[in-house]
């Protein structure tokens, strides 16, 4: 049997399917509402209290620098509702993390309101959003 990367992927996927394990395929279908509900865990969501830093005009939707921060947060989440897969990243912080900040680079399929949510140590949830004009969409994001 010849070993190829494709072969490995196909056989791996087939094994997962045979086990009835949906793997990441199911996770791909998470909507914005589901992602937010799972993050908030039933807590009411109040506006403000999160810093979302990203440019107002993104020239290249494949690579948009984003920084999200909320002092005292247990977890932060970035959501792009107009992307094919809206949740982008969810960071949980340990005791050594301070200023609870995550900087990354994301794909934006089209112009939209990017959202940042913070789950604070007391379980309350804060949310902000920012409009971003995307010049060239990170198509297939």
């Amino acid at each position, binding site marked *: 049997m010849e070993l190829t990367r494709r072969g490995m992927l196909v056989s791996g996927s087939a094994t997962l399917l045979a086990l009835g394990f949906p793997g990441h395929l199911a996770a791909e279908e998470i909507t914005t509402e589901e992602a937010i509900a799972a993050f908030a865990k039933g807590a009411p969501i109040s506006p403000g209290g999160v810093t979302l830093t990203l440019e107002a005009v993104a020239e290249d939707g494949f690579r948009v620098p984003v920084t999200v921060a909320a002092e005292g947060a247990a977890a932060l989440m970035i959501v792009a509702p107009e992307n*094919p*897969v809206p*949740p982008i990243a969810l960071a*949980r912080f*340990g005791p*050594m993390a*301070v200023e609870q900040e995550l900087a990354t680079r994301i794909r934006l399929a089209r112009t939209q309101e990017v959202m940042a949510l913070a789950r604070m140590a007391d379980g309350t949830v804060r949310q902000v959003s920012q409009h971003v004009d995307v010049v060239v969409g990170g198509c*297939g*994001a």
Partner: protein
Amino acid sequence: MSMSLLAAAGLRRMATGVKSRVKLPKTAAAGEVITIKTLITHRMESGQRRDDAGAVIPRSIIHRFTCDFEGEPVVDVQVHPGVSTNPFFAFRARVSRSGVFSFAWYDDDGAVYTDSKAIAVT
């Protein structure tokens, strides 16, 4: 062929061409807040693209990134396809003693890429 041989061949295959980079200060004062920057080379195939024949190119991404300090979690990131090619993450930590930061990137294909960096705290 046995599964273990397949797994060994697969792991060797998966580990090729992936390079991680971690940047943090070599020394810091006790109680100082430092910035940790990380990058890994990975195409982050989103699973949304199609090839020339119109077939969906299967998703293949780094789906989780973690940073620990001497076994204590600093940050644990659940990563979706909306994170760009060559995923970059930066965050802040307060250091109180010397030790080693350990980093791990979890690939959809089962591979786990790791890196580590020591800091001397005075």
